[in-house]
């Protein structure tokens, strides 16, 4: 197990370095010159050169990369070129908001997806199964941004039950309930796709396990239905958890659509703004951030497998 983790850590590092190279070069490939933007239209060539030098953009790319990487390894991602605040500070706040959105969505998606999926798996072609399949089809076919709009029209405009945007009310107290109240609609909008995927995969996982011989053998032991169900679910968990983890990782960036529709101040929005306005430091830092998180999610998903499947645990 220890060797396995070590190999994973090495892989992790290798991937991160690759990712950092890609994002570094990508930012410099985006058309346009940030200096022009920063210096303003009236700057002279000399002023521009000075600004360029102050950001270290006059050095060769490889040197720039080396410097940035060295600092990043120590946790210093530099300052936003446009806002002049430290990148890490800027990102952490937004990250918290995105994680909140992801958590809320996954909560709803798990609630609906797992329960309908498991019930459908135990009674295929039954009423719950048919309902579940329709829900799943809707979930994977609904564009999240449009669904968000529908929710706004229905529940924020026509039925003024929920706020249409933002994370806290302007005149509100900004407390937990206020945030949750603002969180509801965006979370539902973001939950549609993962819910659909998880419902289907859970159903499939349960069906597959039920087909296996040992389930018949358990029935031949005279176990009551409930005990059989527990056996089936326990065996299906590795697959179910795998899908769930993947969806959670996916949502980190997929949430951007809901963030835009509901003006939810999250990380996706930040990255988008930084990339399009060529704020190198923010973009590089943010992408590195997200990729690390994404990889961490994948690692967690991988680690969960052995916990629930003894065959892998002891291999």
């Amino acid at each position, binding site marked *: 197990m220890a060797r396995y983790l070590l190999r994973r850590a090495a892989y992790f590092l290798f991937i991160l370095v*690759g990712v950092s190279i890609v994002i570094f070069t990508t930012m410099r*490939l985006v058309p346009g010159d940030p200096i022009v933007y920063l210096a303003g239209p009236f700057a002279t060539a000399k002023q521009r050169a000075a600004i360029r030098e102050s950001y270290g953009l006059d050095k060769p790319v490889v040197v720039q990369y080396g410097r940035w990487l060295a600092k990043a390894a120590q946790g210093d991602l530099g300052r936003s070129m446009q806002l002049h605040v430290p990148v890490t500070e800027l990102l952490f706040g937004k990250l918290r908001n995105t994680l909140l959105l992801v958590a809320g969505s996954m909560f709803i998606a798990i609630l609906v997806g797992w329960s309908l999926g498991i019930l459908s798996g135990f009674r295929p072609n039954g009423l719950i199964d048919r309902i579940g399949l329709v829900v799943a089809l809707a979930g994977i076919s609904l564009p999240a941004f449009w669904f968000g*709009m*529908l929710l706004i029209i229905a529940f924020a405009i026509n039925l003024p039950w929920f706020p249409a945007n933002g994370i806290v009310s302007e005149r509100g107290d900004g407390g937990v309930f206020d945030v949750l109240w603002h969180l509801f609609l965006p979370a539902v909008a973001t939950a549609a796709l993962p819910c659909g*995927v998880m419902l289907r995969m859970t159903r*499939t996982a349960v069906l597959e396990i039920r087909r296996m011989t040992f389930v018949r053998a358990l029935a031949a032991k005279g176990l009551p239905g409930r005990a059989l169900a527990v056996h089936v679910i326990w065996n299906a968990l590795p697959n179910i958890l795998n*899908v769930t983890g*993947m969806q959670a990782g996916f949502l980190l960036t997929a949430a951007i659509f809901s963030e835009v529709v509901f003006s939810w101040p999250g990380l996706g929005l930040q990255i988008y703004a930084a990339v399009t306005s060529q704020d190198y430091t923010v973009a590089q830092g943010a992408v590195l951030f997200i*990729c690390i998180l994404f990889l961490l999610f994948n690692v967690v998903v991988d680690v969960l497998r052995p916990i629930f499947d003894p065959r892998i645990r002891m291999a």
Partner: protein
Amino acid sequence: MPIILRDGRIIFGGCVVAVIGLLTLAAPLVSPYDPLQVFSGLRNAPLGTAGHLLGTDQAGRDILSRVLWGGRVSLVIGTVPVAVSLAIGTCLGLIAAYYGRWVEFLILRLMEILFAFPLILLAILAAAVLGKGMLNAMTAMTIVVIPYVIRAVHAAAKSTMGMTYVEAAIIRGAGPWRIMLSEILPNIVSSLVVFATSVMPIFIIFSAGLSYLGLAIEPPTPDWGIMIAEGQQVIQTAPHVPTVPGIVLLLVAISMNLIGDGVQDALNPSSRRRPVGADPQLSRPI
């Protein structure tokens, strides 16, 4: 009649997609107005207004025409990248599997790095670098999908290569391309078809999403994503403006998902009545 045509889902989905596809294709003939034509004084006209079946948008342009013309853009952006990435990805995947050693190593490692980027992030980066415009948007999306294709093809090809008839072909002295095309490829075709049909609905939505974010299409070219984005401004007063293009998008997505399910069940008889969770994110990056 082959099973594939008897599946109700494929029939229904196929019909809907065909109808919508044909309508958008025939937009120059069928569309009542030019999609850019502004009817000043007739902004945000509701559904069923005289002369404008689906109303007009916030700039006074006929929505029905924009949906038809926009469909050409949206449908193309959603489907062409899948086909292209399948072609390129299959080649690269086959090459990687067949030649092995450093070629395989290089290709696979590059793909792994790309896999570390969440799908949407990669698309945003690619779109930012390439800029707006239909061609660029399609290129960006193609780049994003290729890693998944390569990985799937490589895995399938590797397992096929272990089979004896491939070894027999190599001993016979068949050239590499011949082997790749006539021995390996036919065996992975059905999984590729399943992959393509299940990825397409995701792509249609995804490309609409990118244009929603303003990364794909240069306005004023109509496109369903942009229509939804622009329509959001008048969501309070004229909710039909962003809603209508979304409904069409939803219909297309549902139909494509139904087709994908039907194809999956037809080509994998062992998975009868097993809907596919057709999310490429399900393949693990590491």
